[in-house]
Every structure is written in structure tokens, then in C-alpha cells.
């Protein structure tokens, strides 16, 4: 085994990076892959709560870097998937506690017996972001179909180009198909045309994402959730499978039937 290191980043905060990392990691683990997640947001640790592992933390990534523990000791095993681990961020205020070379070294130590290392980048384009992309073989950019999020995603894509980090792929998160149909939300085509990068998945807005993070159980574990299905599909694409994009425009019920009959879109 030699792991692929995937960094999830966005520029703007609050677009769903941490949710994406928790869900993709869980979906990959459910497919039998060995996955290690790294929370790259030093000082603002969050991946642990979204994954429901906050009570198990003993050591964090800064303890590893400063030699207070072995790498294995900072790897928290998931409650449901024994082949999924989290390396939590430290809650220290020292932004310089981690350097790009630290991240590269940790990822190289993980590579031999892991399938995927997934790094949750902090928002912004500063130190934490630089650390998070340093070891990446592949970068996924998360955005929402909103002007501020798309603009910041474009900045990040520009930096990734300048750093020669390969072609990033886009996760368009929280798309609302009804708003798109009414031309009151940027469509996936609009966002792709603006950003000029490849698409790896569109995740519809879905209340069950919030319910999942409340419980510390990523939404991919809910077989009925549309967002869960979208994340499962992205995980398959990460593994090299060709999965068609979901039809988000499908409508159910009487209103949908009427709209279909009248040809109104």
C-alpha cells in the first residue's frame, strides 16, 4: 500500500470542508479502505466533533511533531470502522507549531500502510492552508453556489496552480435544486464555467447533514440521505470508479407530476 494524500480546502470558511472530509473518509472506510484523517486547523479543532471522536483524544498532531508521543498514539480509531483513524489538531494558539515539512513527514510515515490520507485544511490562504497542501497528491476544493464562496475558491485554485499542485477537483456543496430551477442560484454549469476546473461531485442541500453532525455520525451512514448518496459517489470517484452524476432535478409528488406534464421547468 502507498497512500494517496488528499487535501480538502475551500478558501472561504463554512462551506462544508470538515463535513466533506468526515463523509468521504467514512464512505472510503465503508468501502473497505484504510483511511487516516488529519485535522489541519490548528487552534480551531473541529473534525473530532463532526466524527464523534472528541471524547477519545489523548494526543494531537503537535504532540507528535514535538516528540511527546508516537504517531500511532495520536491516531484515534473510529467507533464503527476499525480501519479509519483521526489525527486531531491541537488547540494551541501557536500558529507556527506545524510546518509544511512536518506535514510531509507525517504523511510519508502514514503512506506505507494506509490507502488514503485525507487532510482537512483550515479556511483562508495562510500558514494552515500551506501546511495542508504541502503533502497533497490531490486537492479537492469545496464551494457553495454563492458569490463569496466561488470567488474565494477561485483564489485558492489560482494559488494551487502557482504551486503546481496538479489539477484540483471541485465539490459543489449545498446546491438547492429548486432555487437553481428558478434561476435564483448559480447552477453547477455556471460554477464550473466560472472556475474552469473539473467536477468531482455535487452535494444537494440536505437537512440530514446537520442531524448527522449533531450526532457525530456522518450523513453517508444514512442510506436515505441524498447528500449521503452524493458523498458516497464522490468516494467511488476518488477510488477511480466512473459513477454518473445524480439527477438533482427530479421532483416527487403531485407538483412534480404537474410540472412534468406542463413542461414547465
Amino acid at each position, binding site marked *: 500500500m502507498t497512500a494517496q494524500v488528499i487535501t480538502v480546502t475551500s478558501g472561504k470558511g463554512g462551506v462544508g470542508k470538515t463535513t466533506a472530509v468526515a463523509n468521504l473518509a467514512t464512505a472510503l472506510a465503508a468501502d473497505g479502505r484504510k483511511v487516516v484523517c488529519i485535522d489541519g486547523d490548528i487552534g480551531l479543532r473541529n473534525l473530532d466533533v463532526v466524527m464523534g471522536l472528541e471524547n477519545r483524544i489523548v494526543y494531537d498532531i503537535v504532540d507528535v511533531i514535538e516528540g511527546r508521543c508516537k504517531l500511532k498514539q495520536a491516531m484515534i480509531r473510529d467507533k464503527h470502522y476499525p480501519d479509519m483513524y483521526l489525527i486531531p489538531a491541537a488547540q494551541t494558539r501557536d500558529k507556527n507549531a506545524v510546518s509544511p515539512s512536518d506535514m510531509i513527514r507525517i504523511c510519508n510515515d502514514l503512506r506505507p500502510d494506509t490507502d488514503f490520507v485525507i487532510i482537512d485544511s483550515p479556511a483562508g490562504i495562510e500558514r494552515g492552508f500551506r501546511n495542508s497542501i504541502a503533502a497533497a497528491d490531490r486537492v479537492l476544493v469545496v464551494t457553495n453556489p454563492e458569490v463569496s464562496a*466561488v*470567488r474565494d475558491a477561485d483564489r485558492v485554485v*489560482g494559488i494551487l496552480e502557482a504551486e503546481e499542485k496538479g489539477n484540483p477537483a471541485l465539490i459543489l456543496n449545498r446546491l438547492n435544486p429548486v432555487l437553481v430551477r428558478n*434561476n435564483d442560484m*448559480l*447552477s453547477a454549469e*455556471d460554477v464550473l464555467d*466560472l472556475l474552469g476546473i473539473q467536477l468531482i461531485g455535487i452535494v444537494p442541500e440536505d437537512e440530514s447533514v446537520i442531524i448527522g453532525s449533531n450526532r457525530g455520525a456522518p450523513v453517508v451512514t444514512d442510506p436515505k440521505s441524498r447528500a449521503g448518496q452524493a458523498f458516497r459517489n464522490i468516494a467511488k470517484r476518488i477510488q477511480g470508479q466512473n459513477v454518473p452524476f445524480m439527477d438533482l432535478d427530479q421532483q416527487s409528488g403531485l407538483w412534480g407530476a404537474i410540472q412534468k406534464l406542463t413542461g414547465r421547468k
Partner: protein
Amino acid sequence: MNWFTRKRSAESAKERLQLVLVHDRTDLTPGQLEALKDELLKAISRYIDIDPEAVQIGLERDGRSQRLVADIPLRSVSRNRAG
């Protein structure tokens, strides 16, 4: 605003983003672009006769790359020769 005639917001979002991204990517403000146009026109006018009113210069997107596109109609010189 009338529900039937209002421009839907997705269209404004896209148009505004197209402009913002071009300037973000080139690190060129609209003011600097105007200054660039003026200097360009001055330089060209030293060699050929152009109609400054008809000139169109702007930044265009092509995938992830930008280009500076200039459309500069030349004034016909035949009149001068005839005279």
C-alpha cells in the same frame, strides 16, 4: 419589482463574478485597466490614425487563462491619398 420582468438573481451573480474573477486573477483594478487603455491608444496613435471612440479593449476569460483583447478599427487612409 415585477415578478415576471425582474432579472433572476443567478444571472446577476454570474455576471458579477465573471468581472470580479477577471480582476482578481490579473490583479488589475478597473482604474489600472483604464490607464492601460489610454497609454495603449496613445502609442498606437503615434503610428496610425485610429478612431478612439470605436476602440474596444477588455479582459476576457478563456477557461482558467485571461487575455487582453483589443478591437481597434483603423481610419481609412484612401481619402488622404485622393487629396
